């Protein structure tokens, strides 16, 4: 059947089987391969995308259920070719990853947090990424990246002091 998907502010009309997951639709039909399959049963969080700004697991949602919502994938975060968002740059600054497999999902989960909460505490950061499993880092440099991005993004909006 036909679904109309709003992904990274672009409309796509896609022909899908009703049983196709949003994850498989993004990867196989739209070649948005930054969303990754990890467990495909909703635990590891590697497939996280944003639906209307909230982090959700695209392996647990059917593509047909995504008709009419606004989806953001990792491909939608970078400001332009070769450029990084402040959050993406902070992950590079602290080396908040190793193999990079859980990274797009981790960044989207953090993005969802920072768009609601400009000054998260360590506990709030930990809570926001606790549904995303990383096997490489032990999470410390990820938490640091999110805190650093929050600090820098707050600074961006500060009035210029004389």
């Amino acid at each position, binding site marked *: 059947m036909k679904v109309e998907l709003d992904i990274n502010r672009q409309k796509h009309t896609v022909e899908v089987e009703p049983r196709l997951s949003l994850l498989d639709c993004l990867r196989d039909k739209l070649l948005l391969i930054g969303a990754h*399959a990890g467990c495909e049963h909703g635990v590891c969080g590697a497939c996280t995308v944003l639906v209307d700004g909230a982090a959700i697991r695209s392996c647990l949602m059917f593509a047909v259920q995504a008709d009419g919502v606004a989806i953001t994938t990792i*491909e939608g975060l970078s400001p332009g070719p070769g450029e990084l968002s402040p959050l993406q740059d902070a992950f590079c*600054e602290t080396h908040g990853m*190793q193999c990079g497999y859980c990274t797009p999902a981790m960044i989207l989960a953090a993005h969802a947090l920072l768009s609601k909460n400009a000054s998260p505490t360590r506990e709030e950061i930990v809570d926001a990424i*606790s549904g995303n499993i990383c096997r490489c880092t*032990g999470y*410390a440099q990820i938490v640091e990246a999110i805190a650093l991005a929050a600090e820098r993004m707050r600074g961006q909006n500060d009035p210029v002091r004389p």
Partner: protein
Amino acid sequence: MTAPGKFRFVSSDRRVREDRRFVVGKGSFAADIVPQGVKHVALVTCPHPAARIVSIDKAAALAIPGVHYVLEGAELAGATNVLAAGLDTPNVPRYPLALNVARYAGEWVAAVVADSRALAEDAAEAVAIEYAPLPFILDADEAYKPGSTLVHEAHGSNVLLDRTFVWGEVEQDFAVSPHRLKHRVKWGRSSTVPIETFGVTASWDPWREILDIWASIQMPKYPDQTAMVLKIPMSSVRVHYDVDVGGSYGVKRGIKHTVLVGYLSKRLGMPVRLIEDRLENMRGGDMHGPERNFDVEVAFDDQGIIRSMKMRALDNVGAYAGRSPFQLGKPVGAIVGPYKIKSVQYQAIAVVTNKTVQEAVRAFGQSPTNYAIERTIDEVAVKLGLDRLEIRRRNMIRHEEFPYLIPSGSTYDSGDYHTVIDKVLAHAGYGELIAERDRLRSAGTLAGIGIAACLEPSGGNSSFEPLLNPKVGTTTWMDSCRISIDLVGSITATMHTTSAGQGHETLVGTVVGEVLEVDPDKVRVVRSDSLNALPSNSPVGSRMAIMLGGAAFHAAKQLKDKLTAIAAHDLGVPVERIAYKDGSAFDTSAPDKKRTWAELVTMAHRHIHKLPEGMEPGLSVSHIMPVPMGGGLPTADGRVQMYPCYSFEFHLMLVTIDPDLGKPEIKRYVIGHDCGTVINPKIVRGMTLGGIAHGIGAALYEEFAYNEDGLLVAQNFMDYLLPSAHEVPFVEIVHHETPSPLTVFGQKGSGESGYLGAPAAIASAVNDAVRPLGIVVDSLPIKVARLGDMIAQARENNAREAKKGN
């Protein structure tokens, strides 16, 4: 070797170049590579722990439109060679699909090929297989006994390896020691379980006669074993090393997966891929880690000086023999840990059972052995009433005693264990930490201090192969780097293996930049495929900083020497008078006389008439590096230099346990870490913290548990528990550098750090916490439910005893 602090780029806190592609979702992982027309594999797996395959009916599956093929074991085994095993065990053959008999629940019995993965899964359910269940065995102690149920009848027993080494005067040292202690500790079956499952795509071109392979692989000997099993020349196998691997930590060794899709691609004339789903990965992906029972006995004096140790390690390697029994061999290279134990008896036993096949896991068997040694040291301290730190200090090798030869034949290169411990204690405020524990105890909580010290052998030459299988003569295990400066002066370095997050492109760029005195970010680093590769043994055994870093150093040095020689010749001065600086070369007695980078590069590429007589034009060099200290076969009694470099770590932690729930919580975690010169601080820090997280998982949460019916019950992430950000505490690292005298910058390995000692430290803390109750926790993982039951039982018993006393 240059002293620390003298480097320009090495040791500086530079960004990791790989990160840029990952943060935007532009990694190139195995599942991202989709050749035109690729077909998809799903697997039919055995639901019994052991069963004879009576019949396979494929008709219903093949009738589904879009289904191309159903492959069974007999066809595959008939067309391929048996998969390679490490030990000499010809009667334990292993094929990708079970042949006549399936030997564990989840073993692959048939493979379905279809237009999509979903269709292949539909068809897999339609394959009708009749099984005749057979008796099975799960327990290693039982499997070791003569007369037990046989996993492989033709082998005649379940024992793959049973060898006892004696190094030094063990019996004599035991006889003269006033004390001895014997106990059993167990390491449970877990693994490092990457978030990316194993995936591989193979595409056979019958006209070029090349099998292209894209795989999430981390495996030495991968192209050669693929060629050997598929009966094609190695020059017909092209493994693409530019695939990003989504975590491996040892386990991504999908040789059986690769043989399966390689065969199918040849057979069907189509590209074929297998991307495991989580279930296929957990039960049939053959990536479980060691499951080991240790019986350890030590002899010691009144001061707690341990003179001798007898260790028996019984490992349950699962249903088939791959490379995993060698994981009993690696610990021989650090069998006494950081301690001066004079003599050792080591019995290494590997048995097969009807469990999933074991694969290499981070530290290749060293972490379980460290856990056994450290648990033993703690028990000796308790028996003598000595402080656990003091007994370690007394037994440890002192800084001035390096290089230090251990009884099993390896010489430790360098270390300063006492200083690292002192730094950790000072940082942590050890006295206050003890006071905090005691305060918590008096408030009614169970609280304990955990201590563990251990080594990370690094840069190895695979000497455990000839040690445990005399038919193998391996004495080196090289790695390589090729560097070219092109005709306009850009630098490109090539590496010859995949990476799984270790930052090797950053490593090579940093080293080349350091030697050639250019901005590392200007050095392009690419990966070859296996047909144009120099020798590499892949990132195993904490080796790449030493081996790839070393190869890049030597290749860059050769280029620098060549540029210097060209300048000397063109300036007409002896080469000794030429100094190289920032890419230019000048006459030290007349610094105005110089040749710039552009001039040197142009001469090398275009002006052969200006080059020294006989010099090869161009600027392209390769270096193939052997392992430092390697080159010798084991002696008859099994002594061999196994690893060149030995990193050190010391863990200290405070743990509380809720006395009602039995739930441990890490309140403070400090690790002292010494891996010599650090090439990239961000990478080394990440390795250590990530290794600790793996160690926390192995110690407290992760276990491939089986039920009485022989079925794996922890086969998804609801039942196999992975630590989340909530479970991994804030960890403080205390850094120390004791450079290795054997490496180009003084670097040692760090890829397995953290994981090597965290389980031992957690076990130490938990036991310190529950010891007042009179109980000992002697097996990992320490699951909440079991610990809670043990504590409740102990409290009940103690209350009953107290009542009796009244």
